């Protein structure tokens, strides 16, 4: 089962969204986004555990968090766009 990543164009947007997840007890990490995920380059992602993905997506949407896309991060290194 994959972990999930929500990509953001700016560190500030990622940090604001991270705080929303923190307040709801969803463990998460802010990381630099792989270059391949952002067409215009340089961005950040919030990674959450596999079982938190759907809930995190629902919360971030409810708060109008400005994430760009959601990706599934597989243990073997594959990264695929995900629909949650």
């Amino acid at each position, binding site marked *: 089962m994959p972990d999930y990543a929500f990509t953001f*164009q*700016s*560190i*500030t947007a990622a*940090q604001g969204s991270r705080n929303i997840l923190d307040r709801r007890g969803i463990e998460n990490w802010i990381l630099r986004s792989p270059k391949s995920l952002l*067409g*215009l*380059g*340089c961005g950040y992602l919030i990674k959450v555990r596999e079982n938190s993905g759907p809930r995190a997506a629902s919360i971030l949407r409810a708060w109008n968090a400005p994430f760009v896309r959601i990706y599934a991060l597989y243990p073997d290194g594959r990264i695929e766009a995900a629909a949650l």
Partner: protein
Amino acid sequence: MIYLDSSATAMQKPKTVPRAVLKAMRSLASPGRGGYRPAMEAAEAVYDCRAAAAELFAAQPEQVVFTMNATHGLNLAIKSLARRGDTVVISGFEHNSVVRPLHHLGANVIVAGEKLFDPENTLAAFDRAVTEDTKAVVCTHVSNVFGYILPVEQIADLCRRRGVPFVLDASQSAGTLPVSLSGLGAAFIAMPGHKGLYGPSGTGLLLCGQKPATLLEGGSGSLSKSPEMPDFLPDLAEAGTQNTAGICGLAAGLRFVQERGMDEILRHEQALRRELAEELARLDGMRIFADDRCQTGVLSFLITGEDCELTAQRLGENGFCVRAGLHCAPLAHKSAGTLETGTVRVSFSAFNTKKETERLIRYLKK
């Protein structure tokens, strides 16, 4: 030495401020530029300051833009809203940080409200001057020369009703008077970090109710392939490497203000100013600019027959740090009738004491 020039900069800082600056200089890299620990910790430190400012001034963290000082923020705000020939209404108590950018733009500037310590007159003047042709209103919250508190809530309300963008210069109020981006519905609020917020010099905040134009373009750590600046805040207005150490010091200053309480700081400064004004008013040959109904902890005065700069020099030689002259606000002096004489200004901070005020009074009584 007794420091009484906090309207220029708060020289006395909480101990936590230099500590935070030093810690940042020793351990933090560039925020929003890397994924390694010192860069990510820098990004967290910067966000902490943004969030603290957002909480204090009723904004969202992304609406808080770090600037070099209030002048930088005011230039951003004014140049986002006005073009050559546009009509802009300002108060009669504006600093050159407002007057000069507007002059440089070639804006048609209307000055509203020139009566000192008269909020009703100020409001009525804005009511007359602001029309549907007005491109922006720019108003100081507090006169840096006289400590006059302008009725900015009502002026902002008037602007909202007439659909005119409102810019607040909170240089002399941030940290002592309530300043609310959402409450005022302002287009922009500019403030320094190094005065009432007790941060280091070289720091300032621009609260953005709308997207500003860019004054600088460059690296933002985001959308790097594009030759355009990102169109989202705060990245849009923060080109180049941040003043991380200064921002960490500012965060410590904000925490000090929150812990001490703005009300308490204002009461303290007003009490010192009141005592000074009352005592000086008893002296012959002293002209005092005071009105307790609408004045912060700033007091201007003049000694009859003595050049204000000589008074300040004499005070300085005796250990009292005050500022004389026009205080970069000739418009305020023109409004108050002191353009030719200037004034001597005493401005208190949270760190001044009653004992210090009494020493100044004793010296001036000699």
